[in-house]
């Protein structure tokens, strides 16, 4: 057993209100530089929807992530070792700026300088790349809130596995449904971006598992952009270097939550340490997709197990990190309660960002001129939720509806339990039945309720001490590095020489 620690995340989708505060917080801190205007290290998508970059989940086109070769070994879908040699001059699976959008601003001076006339002056959009006037054809949230749109939502790659009936119900006006899907780098255990980098510029930090790009080693071979199935490495067209979410490590090392976590209005984000067995990464990543969620959960270790603690210590994991792992909210959501699931685990990167699937209940429908409840009881079976289970399973269950149904059923049980405690109109026998069916107990429901609804800042973000005495970048003032090429530089980035 090779015990390592990883900063891991949970996003509670039922609580996300799609306000994009996280995206703006990230943009203002990290990507307000030339060449990074189009990058959204954190973005919030509407699901069903095509996302950012457009249709990023369609791996037949983007070729991100891993696949198994004829011998059952892991192989990058885009450019593995052998295939990078002939493809290094032109990466065949590299998305272009048009797959994202061309960043723009407006010619605001026209508003002030226009001569007096009968019509209102307008500020025309101009490209932030060329400076030329442009017509805006896409943006970072182009299909925001268009859940039922036949133009955007209908192109969601996750809809492929649905039956025609399920598709129809997803787009029927009474059942129209959408939810928000905030995304940052998953800081995977088996990152395909790291494996694809010919220069070895990408690496996983041993101490906390954060995946970073060494800006001084990146040579713009572009492999990481093609290899990341979540499209969370971005190419800076100005400096000729790739950049990605750094999980705000300068903030984490000073005990602060990452900017997107800190600013989250819906308080949907949880961050904590997970201990895992690094020896099992390859074995788990090779499993059939329907077994992977269970297996990944299994390789995450119990931080209270004396044997795990002993092995972690022997491996150099600090006691303070083990202690943080014992209080980790992520551990509770993922391992204890099993209601947080990894996105698209079938791409075999073993993401360490987990999502609590949204309930999306159907409350009412139109019957002639009246509105009627669709179910007899206020809390209906999850199978009657508006989003088909197979859709959620494609996104979060590795194609397996079982995990999603389990998570939703348990969340529904928590609601029924709370109603019985606060309103008191639930039959105790019914409640006991529901709890048993949902594989939960009153104590667990209470804990889920508290961490979901009443969670304080310190309960949501359990950040281990950074151990300044051991860190390299610790002595630097984070804000000195705004507008510079990255942490560790003070000079501004320039193109080439």
């Amino acid at each position, binding site marked *: 057993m090779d015990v390592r620690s990883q900063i891991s995340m949970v996003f509670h989708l039922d609580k996300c209100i799609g306000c994009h505060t996280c995206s703006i917080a990230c943009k203002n801190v990290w990507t307000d530089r030339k060449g990074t205007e189009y990058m959204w290290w954190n973005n919030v998508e509407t699901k069903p929807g095509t996302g950012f970059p457009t249709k990023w989940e369609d791996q037949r086109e983007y070729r991100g992530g891993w696949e198994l070769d004829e011998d059952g070994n892991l192989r990058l879908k885009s450019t593995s070792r052998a295939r990078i040699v002939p493809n290094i001059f032109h990466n065949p699976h590299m998305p272009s*700026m048009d797959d994202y959008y061309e960043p723009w601003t407006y010619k605001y001076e026209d508003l002030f300088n226009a001569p007096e006339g009968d019509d209102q002056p307008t500020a025309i959009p101009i490209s932030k790349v060329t400076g030329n006037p442009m017509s805006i054809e896409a943006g970072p949230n182009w299909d925001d809130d268009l859940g039922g749109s036949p133009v955007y939502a209908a192109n969601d790659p996750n809809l492929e596995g649905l039956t025609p009936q399920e598709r129809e119900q997803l787009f029927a006006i009474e059942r129209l449904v959408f939810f928000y899907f905030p995304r940052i780098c998953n800081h995977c255990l088996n990152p395909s971006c790291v494996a694809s980098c010919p220069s*070895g510029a990408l690496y996983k*930090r*041993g101490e906390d598992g954060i995946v970073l790009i060494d800006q001084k080693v990146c*040579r713009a071979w*572009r492999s990481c952009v093609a290899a990341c199935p979540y499209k969370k490495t971005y190419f800076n067209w100005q400096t000729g270097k790739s950049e990605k979410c750094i999980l705000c490590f300068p903030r984490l090392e000073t005990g602060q939550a990452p900017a997107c976590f800190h600013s989250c209005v819906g308080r949907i984000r949880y961050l904590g340490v997970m201990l895992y067995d690094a020896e099992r990464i390859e074995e788990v990543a090779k499993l059939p997709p329907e077994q992977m969620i269970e297996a990944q959960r299994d390789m995450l270790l119990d931080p209270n197990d004396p044997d795990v603690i002993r092995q972690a210590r022997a491996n*150099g994991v600090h006691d303070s990190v083990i202690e943080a792992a014992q209080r980790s909210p992520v551990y509770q959501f993922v391992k204890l309660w099993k209601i947080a699931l990894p996105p698209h685990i079938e791409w075999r990167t073993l993401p360490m960002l987990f999502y609590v699937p949204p309930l999306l209940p159907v409350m009412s429908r139109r019957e002639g001129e009246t509105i009627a409840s669709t179910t007899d009881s206020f809390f209906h079976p999850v199978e009657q939720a508006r989003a088909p289970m197979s859709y959620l399973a494609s996104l979060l269950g590795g194609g397996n509806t079982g995990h999603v149904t389990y998570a939703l059923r348990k969340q529904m049980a928590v609601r029924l339990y709370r109603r019985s405690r606060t309103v008191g109109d639930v039959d105790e026998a019914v409640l006991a039945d529901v709890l048993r069916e949902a594989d939960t107990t009153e104590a667990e429901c209470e804990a889920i309720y508290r961490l979901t609804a009443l969670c304080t800042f310190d309960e949501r973000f359990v950040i281990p001490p950074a151990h300044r005495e051991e860190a*390299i970048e610790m002595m630097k003032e984070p804000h000195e590095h705004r507008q510079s090429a990255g942490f560790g530089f003070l000079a501004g*980035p320039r193109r080439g*020489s």
Partner: protein
Amino acid sequence: MPGSDGFHHLDVILYAVLPYIAMFVFFLMTIYRYRTQSFSYSSLSSQFLENDKHFWSTVPFHYGILFVLLGHVVAFLVPRAILAWNGSPLRLMILEVTAMAAGLLTLVGLVSLIVRRLVVPRVRRVTTPADTLLYALLLFQVVTGLTVAYHHTWGSSWFATTLSPYLWSLVKLNPDISYVVPMPLFVKLHILGNWALILIFPFTRLVHVLVIPNAYLFRKTQVVRWNYPRREIRRPPGTERAS
């Protein structure tokens, strides 16, 4: 004005002094730049800004110039092998035709790259003066090279008997320009273009040639960096240091 050894001063400067200046600047500045500005070592790919023309220009250019460069290097290193190969007219013909094809491929790729730079506004935006100078010199070099190949055929053979000795004389620090001075104009221009390219090499994006990632083929799949020797740093006091 001929010097004491019978050569014109200008010839001495261009073919015996310039090469040393160029090589000196090349080695000094590439190392200096790598050590002080490693951030600037990048291929500066513009594929992200324009994806289709990129394929049809950069791929022929790189494959073409790699083959042509390889030919030059082989003729410089093992001229006898080239002469032996060229002993049969058929093999000579095969080599010449292949080299010419590679040269034309380079030209097509390079012209496409230049056109792409000019007509795609996004790519023009990221073109620096150093890029312009580099493209001009590369075009000069490819055009003079192809002109030599066309007008003075069987270059693979006469390169081995004239220019290889000239280059080796430079390596041995005993420059002998008697092979070069009587050469036709376009051969001389091609030689000068070569020294000019080596001279500006450290100041352009050409440095990406020096950092081609050979190690990737042999390294472990995943890369993990530790801030400290993790097992060692928290070794309980009084226990033995692991060797």
